[in-house]
Structure formats: structure tokens, C-alpha cells
């Protein structure tokens, strides 16, 4: 069952198209990563889904209700958008209580969420005295207040120390495993890779990929990095592999062969038969970061037009 469905969703700000005819479907349950370079339209998409801004054209539904009337689904959503926002002079508890009152939530729930994010012992301190990481935790606590079925978090680990990142990742995974849907927008691709089941990648407001993270990585494939003993053999080695039907890329001192780990022996044997001795042969898994940089055209920092995977999953 889809919890979010966008159909040709478009939002313009003057001449800038922040979200362009976006078709997106996010299934219920699990942790979903929303990734894209700066200015790709992630925050605009989140604001559209929360009813903070209106689409220029197209439509979207959350919990099967149109985003034109967010009152129908707002009580089922918790969100942290961009930086956590609080009244600095009020304590963490008072800040959350004021939000709890607005949602008709009990004060007991306030203490519960403070405990979940590890701020219960500091809850009477003014928010202005909090570190960036603590403010982030407070923001997550505010998002958790309504015990949401859908949690949307924009850069939730921003400012957290490594232990905090692991803790929040565990929290998000736990929420996802409970059957809730957690949408996480983050620049930390390693975090997305570690925490998410599915992924939506957008760039220039367009959807590049949507579907299981494992499928994307599998589709991008694995490769084997081979290093000839003599660097002048790099070109010959690459030609050799290409002739054998493998896609290969020559670099300064090594050749990358698009082949699974299981083909390592064949790759080594082919080099040996051609009289080339390999000084190293290592399987190389393609990371989400590699895929992201390739797909968004930022591989060489050129920010060119993105690569759209032909089989965008829904």
C-alpha cells in the first residue's frame, strides 16, 4: 500500500523549477532514503507533502488524502524540516509541551519522547544552551510527539557525534521495523546506505530512481580492480578484458573490470595468458556514493545533467 503518491508534481519559484513533474510512490513501512544534491528539490518536496507550500501543477496524496487538505493526514505525521526550531529561552520540556498542546497530546508523551532521544535529564534546560546535536535530538523528539505513522526527517543526524548517529540510526531502524514509514533526507550517503531499505533519488527536481536500495546497488554492479605489475601494461590489459566481453576502464595504474567477485579467477587467468602479471586483484563493491555521484553528474564536480536510470521503479 502506498503511503505517499505524487503524480506529475511540479513546483516553480519564479523561473526556477524546484520540483519537476515528479512521479513518486512510497510504500508503507520501512525506512526510505530521500537523496539528491543541494538544491535538488528534496526540501521542496517535503514541504509540498506537509502542506506548507502548494504545488504549481500536478498532485500528490499522503495516506490517500490530497495534499491540498493536509488537515486529513497531519495528525499521523511527524516531521523535522531543515533545522530544528524552538523558542531559545524556553526549556526543552516547555517547548515540547507547547507543541503537544497544539496537537492535543498529553504531557506524559512529552517525557516519553524526551526519554527516547536521551534528553530527559536535560529537559529543564533552556533550548538555547543546547549543542547542535542536542537541538537535533529535540527536533526529532518534536517529530515523534504524535507517535506518527509517517515520520519525515530532514538531515536527522546533522550535528550528532558518531555515537549519536548510531543511536539515531538504531531509533529510525526500530521505527521502520515496527511498521512505520520513516522518510529520511540526508547528505550522508553512508547513513542512508546503513539505515534505509528503499531509496528515492532526485536531482534538479526530477526523480532519478525510486525503489529498493539493494536493487540499485545490484544494478550498478560490482567490479574487480586489477593492478598490473608494470604500469605500461594498463592499456593492453584493458583491451584484453574488453575483447573477452567485460566492460573495463583503464586508469593510471589499474584497470576496473565490471564483473562479479566470482569472476576473479577468470580475470586473473586472462591476464596471465596474455603474459601480464598482476600485482593486485581486489573485488570492489560500488557504494551508494559512487552511484549517487555518477547519477547526479557530480562525479567530477561538474554538476552536469543527471543520469536517469531507465527502469525507475514505482
Amino acid at each position, binding site marked *: 500500500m502506498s503511503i505517499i503518491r505524487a503524480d506529475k508534481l511540479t513546483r516553480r519559484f519564479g523561473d526556477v523549477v524546484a520540483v519537476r513533474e515528479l512521479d513518486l510512490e512510497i510504500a508503507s513501512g520501512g525506512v526510505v532514503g530521500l537523496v539528491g544534491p543541494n538544491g535538488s528539490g528534496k526540501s521542496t518536496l517535503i514541504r509540498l507533502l506537509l502542506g506548507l507550500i502548494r504545488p504549481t501543477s500536478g498532485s500528490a496524496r499522503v495516506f490517500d488524502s490530497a495534499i491540498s487538505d493536509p488537515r486529513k493526514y497531519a495528525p499521523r505525521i511527524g516531521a523535522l524540516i531543515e533545522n530544528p526550531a524552538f523558542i531559545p529561552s*524556553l526549556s526543552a520540556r516547555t517547548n515540547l509541551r507547547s507543541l503537544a498542546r497544539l496537537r492535543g497530546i498529553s504531557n506524559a508523551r512529552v517525557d516519553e519522547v524526551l526519554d527516547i532521544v536521551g534528553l530527559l535529564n536535560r529537559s529543564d534546560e533552556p533550548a538555547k544552551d543546547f549543542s547542535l546535536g542536542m537541538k537535533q535530538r529535540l527536533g526529532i523528539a518534536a517529530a515523534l510527539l504524535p507517535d506518527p505513522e509517517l515520520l519525515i526527517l530532514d538531515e536527522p543526524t546533522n550535528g550528532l557525534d558518531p555515537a549519536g548517529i548510531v543511536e539515531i540510526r538504531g531509533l529510525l531502524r526500530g521505527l521502520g521495523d515496527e511498521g512505520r514509514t520513516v522518510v529520511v533526507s540526508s547528505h550522508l550517503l553512508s547513513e542512508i546506505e546503513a539505515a534505509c531499505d528503499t531509496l528515492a533519488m532526485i536531482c534538479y527536481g526530477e526523480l532519478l530512481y525510486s525503489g529498493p536500495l539493494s536493487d540499485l546497488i545490484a544494478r550498478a554492479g560490482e567490479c574487480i580492480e586489477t593492478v598490473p605489475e608494470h604500469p605500461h601494461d594498463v592499456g593492453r590489459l584493458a583491451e584484453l578484458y574488453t575483447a573477452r566481453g567485460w566492460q573495463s576502464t583503464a586508469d593510471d595504474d589499474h584497470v576496473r573490470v565490471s564483473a562479479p567477485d566470482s569472476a576473479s579467477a577468470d580475470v586473473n587467468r586472462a591476464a596471465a595468458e596474455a603474459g601480464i602479471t598482476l600485482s593486485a586483484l581486489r573485488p570492489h563493491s560500488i557504494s551508494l556514493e559512487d552511484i549517487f555521484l555518477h547519477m547526479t553528474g557530480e562525479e567530477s564536480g561538474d554538476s552536469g545533467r543527471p543520469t536517469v536510470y531507465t527502469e525507475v521503479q514505482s
Partner: protein
Amino acid sequence: MIRAIRCELARLKNPYFILGGMGLMAAFSLMATAIVFLTVESGSAGGPPATEGITLQTLQASDGMFAGVQGFVAMLGIITLAMWAMAVTSDYSSGLIRLLVQAQPNRLLLLGGKVVALTVFTCLATLVTTVAVTVVSPGIANLAGVSTDAWNSGLLGTALAAYVQLTLCVLLWGVVGLLVGMLTRSAGLSIGIGIGYLMIFEGLAGMLFDSAQKWLPGSAFSAIASGGSADMTFGTAVLVAAAYAVGALVLAAVTFRRRDITA
């Protein structure tokens, strides 16, 4: 609506807001009272009094203790305008508006809660101001040599009437602050516009058009604080001010309802 009011009231417990709003209003009222009482003699002796139209007889009348506040009520209005404008603009500058609108997508309820909470806060601020002036002004009058014999007759009723008039007047300025804050989303700009309007525009309009004092909002608000003026009866002032207030509230509501939350 009750939830929105409770949320706003909790947020107004901010000590900076309480001290900056209630404290400033009370302190300014006492200062205005002292200035008017201490300069009234120079006015009658030929020098310029602090506030035009306030004479020794005015101060010695049964409601004389509030003459200072009524003479400088426009400045109290500006303080209230600033408070209301800041209550709106700080939501945008801090990004809180994202949380609030997400938690309560019915923006009219949110705005209504804010208006009610600010009204309660303003009523408390003017109560503190009225009590402070009532308590302190006899001492100031004594210091200035102004007779207070007439003040004791019907003191409670006089104080109550002054409180209601002052509260109505500053609430109207507050509504203007709400609108300007909503339109500009900048506290500084809102206060600048408020002061600029009061000090420059309304003064110029009054000089250029004789009838301007009968329909401009600042004049109407001040006439309410004084229980009526030479240009406007209290009833007329209330009607004119109510029209401005309703217009401002409708415009603020339409703006808030339609605006994108990009903060």
C-alpha cells in the same frame, strides 16, 4: 482553537517577552506620567508642555492620574504593535512556523489562537500598567505639586474606565502590528513602519487634510484611549477603529492562509 490558544499562551511565557512587553509598557507609562506632571507647570507658565492640551486642571480632575498615559498612548500603541508583530515574525525567523503549521494545518485556527493569546497577554500588560500608574501617580503628583483631592472620588470606576479605554486602544495597535508583521515577516521593518506611520504619515495627513483626524486609525485609537476627542466621539472612534481592526484581521488571515511557508 483552544489547543492553539494554549500553545500560544505557553510560548508567551517567554521571560523576554514578558519583561520586554509588560515591563516596557508599565515603565513607559510611569515615565510619561512623570513627564506630563513635572512639565505641566512650565506649560502653564508659557513654556512648552510635554503634551499639547494637558493643563493643570486636566491633571487635577478625577481622571487626571491617567492623563500622562492618555497623552502618550500612541507610544504605548507602538510598543504593543511591536509585541504583536514580533510574536508573528519570530515564528518565521526561527522557523517555528513550519512546526506549527504542520501540527495544525488549519491556519485560521492557528491565527485565531495567536490573536486570543496576544489579547490575553495585552490585557494583562495594560492591567499591570493601570495598577502601576494608579499606585505611583499620587507620589508623582505630590512631587509636582499637583492637587489630587478630586482623584479619590470614584477611583475604582475611573481606573476601570481608563483600563478599558487603554486596553481597547493598544489592542487595536496590536492588530495593526499583527497585519504588518504578517505582511513583512520582519520585526524591525514592522516597527519601523509603525513608527513611520504614526510620526510621519498620520501627522502629514492631519496637516494636509483637516478631516483626516476624523478617520485615520491613529486618531481613532487615541480618541478611544481618551474616551473621545474634539474630532471624534468615543462611539464614533470605536466604530472607525473596529472597521480598521476587522479589515486588518481579514487581510492578515487571507495572507496567512494563502502564503507558502518557506521559512
